[in-house]
């Protein structure tokens, strides 16, 4: 795969059009950040001329985990179990180490039920791009807090969250992840840049993308609530009503801080790392994350990179031929081998 730009607007280096990278129609809510991440993946895969036939898409369960069906329709995809995608990815990647793997997960999927598998995937340095579409809630089960929800956050449905947020970037970092990044779904340029970098990383590349849930990031008592007044709010006590909403977007420069107003009126503070920041310094990475945590803001950008660690595929000392493509003669020892063995027992 190449990091150069494609030769023309219509087709990329391998002769595919952007359309060849699309997937099925999304069934997510209008304005859901997850859909915009799917678009970014489509763009990046097209731009990088990635051969979709050599890509596998993997996910767990959740709104976020549905999205692999909505991009790269020419790639094999698999939607596994809630919180257990990392193991499935590990098996698939070792079965064919020549493929490019994209995993999409949610914050519930990764940080709640999936914490164990996530940590151990990172520990093994399973080569894949692992995207967390992070909204702090369980979208698909209608708005309970996930483990990444902010302490003190209040939601219409779930009440008040009393527990501290689990930071997936910090979690990846302390488990020696070689590529740790964070972005915001409404910042297409940054998401694309980071995705491109992630695709050229050899081990596990973790990208935590804040992707607000337009439907359940909302709470009843908020006075600053999403663009309609008190009376109108009451009418939609109908829990089944999901108003169409605009995607939240933001555009800000390196080193800058941007405040994004959420649907519930609360404010998300994003802080883009500047060019002086050295992502090869693990200690700086720990520091920047811990400080952001204290300030209740989110650091965006490439937080840490280290290309040193061997990947799981490399450690496995695998033959060139993918395991899945082995012929009988490569994997079934000979009659003589059996006879020799038998003589030894």
């Amino acid at each position, binding site marked *: 795969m190449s990091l150069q730009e494609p030769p023309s607007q219509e087709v990329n280096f391998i002769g595919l059009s952007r359309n060849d990278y699309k997937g099925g129609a999304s069934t997510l809510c209008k304005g859901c950040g997850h859909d915009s991440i799917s678009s970014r993946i489509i763009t990046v895969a097209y731009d990088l001329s990635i051969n979709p*036939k050599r890509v596998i898409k993997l996910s767990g369960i959740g709104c976020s985990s549905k999205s692999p069906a909505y991009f790269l329709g020419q790639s094999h*995809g698999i939607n596994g179990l809630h919180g*257990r995608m990392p193991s499935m990815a590990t098996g698939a990647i070792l079965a064919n180490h020549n493929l490019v793997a994209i995993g999409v997960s949610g914050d519930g999927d990764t940080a709640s039920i999936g914490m164990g598998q996530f940590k151990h995937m990172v520990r093994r340095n399973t080569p894949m791009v692992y995207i967390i579409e992070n909204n702090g809630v369980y979208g698909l089960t209608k708005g309970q807090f996930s483990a990444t929800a902010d302490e003190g956050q209040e939601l219409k449905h779930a009440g008040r969250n009393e527990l501290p947020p689990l930071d997936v970037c910090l979690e990846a970092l302390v488990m020696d992840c070689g590529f740790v990044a964070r972005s915001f779904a409404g910042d297409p340029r940054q998401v694309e840049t980071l995705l491109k970098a992630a695709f050229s990383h050899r081990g596990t590349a973790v990208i935590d993308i804040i992707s607000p849930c337009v439907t359940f990031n909302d709470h009843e008592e908020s006075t600053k609530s999403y663009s309609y007044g008190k009376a109108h709010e009451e009418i939609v006590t109908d829990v089944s009503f999901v108003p169409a909403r605009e995607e939240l977007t933001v555009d800000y420069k390196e080193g800058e801080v941007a405040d994004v107003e959420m649907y519930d009126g609360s404010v998300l503070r994003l802080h883009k790392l500047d060019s002086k920041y050295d992502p090869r310094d693990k200690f700086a990475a720990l520091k920047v994350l811990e400080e952001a945590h204290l300030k209740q803001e989110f650091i965006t950008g490439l937080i840490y990179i280290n290309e040193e660690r061997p990947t799981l595929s490399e450690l496995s000392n695998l033959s060139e031929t993918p395991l*899945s493509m082995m012929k009988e003669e490569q*994997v079934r020892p000979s009659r003589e081998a059996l006879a020799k063995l038998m003589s030894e027992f």
Partner: protein
Amino acid sequence: MSAVLEKRDDSLRTQVGVNNFSIVAATVNGSGSQTANSVITRALFKMGIPTSGKNLFPSNISGLPTWYIIRLSSEGFIARRETSEILVAMNRATANDDIAKVPAGGVVIYPTEWKIPETRSDVTYYSLPVLQLAKSSGLTAKLLTYAANMVYVGALAELLGIEIAEIENALLHHFNGKRKPVESNMAVVTAAAEFVRANIVKKDTFRVERMNMTKDMIQIDGNTASALGAIFGGVTFVAWYPITPSTSLVEELTHYAKELRMEPETKKATFAVVQAEDEIAAIGMLVGAGWAGARALTATSGPGIALMTEYAGYAYFTDIPLVVWDVTRMGPSTGMPTRVSQGDILTVYYLGHGDTRHIILLPANMEECFEFGWKSFDLAERLQTPVFVLSDLDLGMNTWMSNQFQYPDKPMDRGKVLSAEQLNELKSFNRYDDSADKDGVGPRTLPGTDSPYAAYFTRGSGHNSKAMYTEKPDEWEDNLKRLARKHEFARTIVPSPVIDSVDGAEVGIIAYGSTDAAIAEARYRLNAIGLKTSYARLKALPATQEVLDFMRAYKRLYVVESNFDGQMAKVLMTDAPDCATRIVSVSKCDGWSLTSEWIAASIWEKEQQ
């Protein structure tokens, strides 16, 4: 039980004598008796005497009671027996109990150092100055406990007539031909033998004689046999989490794969083994690997199976091939991790939620452990579904004699996989459409297949024959019907039972797995007292037509198994409701493998009613 044993006809007991008795070595685990026990077992086997070795060990690392039972049988019966005639008492803590269990006429060998009273008049006592003899090895103090075990090897050799040359051969085998350790061990063996010759007057009648019943046979444990089978089955991916008694299956697999499965030129591996963080991850990895086209295997036991429930149902519903060895141990729950049972039949058959039924293979001996080692992959890929192989602790970790293994008689069956060429010709395919063969199996493609038509999307939620998401009632039902077709198709291709129909028998015995050896012996004894029995040994679930036919042919069907609830009896009742009333469950579950005495006595007693 004992009441039953006493009531029953005496012919149900094994007649002990030359080459026909059992030895039990009662030791403390961690004391290093494994070399001693396996050396005796091998020496006897190499003398041509049918021999088996069963280790009853505790669930800790050192300091608790362990028993190793060696059975010799000139009739070729190798199941555990109720009694052992010769006790080697090396564990002071259990000695009183152990001695009490020796049958009248038996022998007790114990360390002189214990200075215990020889209170039983119906057994022969021999005492050995174990420590003193151990010292003759020249080993350091630290290793004296270890050497002490060699003392009883030497003593038994002398008392029973085990050939010293075979003991030495067995040691050489054990130490991979290294002379040094063989020599220090032989020093103890010889010293002990000499001591016996000089100081002990043999008063018992037990002895061994060379015979010719083990020619061309091997001695092996089931986990090794299974591991080798998998290697010859072209296993390419293994993920696992350690758990007794399955651990050695993967460890042996890894060991032999490094020998047999490296590309000769590149020294690169044609397999991958991953130690997962738990069993959920292990089966998750298999799902990914099986989906992507590897021959994927895990080995586990009860608690691991429990954790695999969700992904097992997923793989069933998404038609992903993979192989799970459940080397069963005693449940429920943690239970007795180092004791045997056949208690996972129902759990595994229905593993998953919703309407799920799996393919189960049931090896009964070493050859089948090897055979199902490779065949499980062919079935899994042909049927595109998880295949569970239910071995158990008795098969997996004990020492069995066996015919040599047969090289696979068929090329690998990778099932319905479409190549890029086929796809480019077809220009599309329907992942779950089995209309071509009506066998419940649709064509699949592997990721990385170089065709624009290859891709499809796999999900555990409702999908139609095109692998598209659906919630439509008819599409949903069609898919379940296809899976039911697959189950019925599986019935026709899983291994057939071994059936022994006896003329004039009104009674059928049904069993499976590790109890086979005890059943063979029980039938022999029942026959001796006039009860003819036919026998069907299941090799798989779902039960094939032969099994159903067998059930319909007998008035009384004794389903013998080593679990508490009579689980296979239940499965068979639902498969053949018309035979439900003929089924009599004969089950026992105390952690020890079934004996022919118990089986014969139980059936005999029920027949008298």
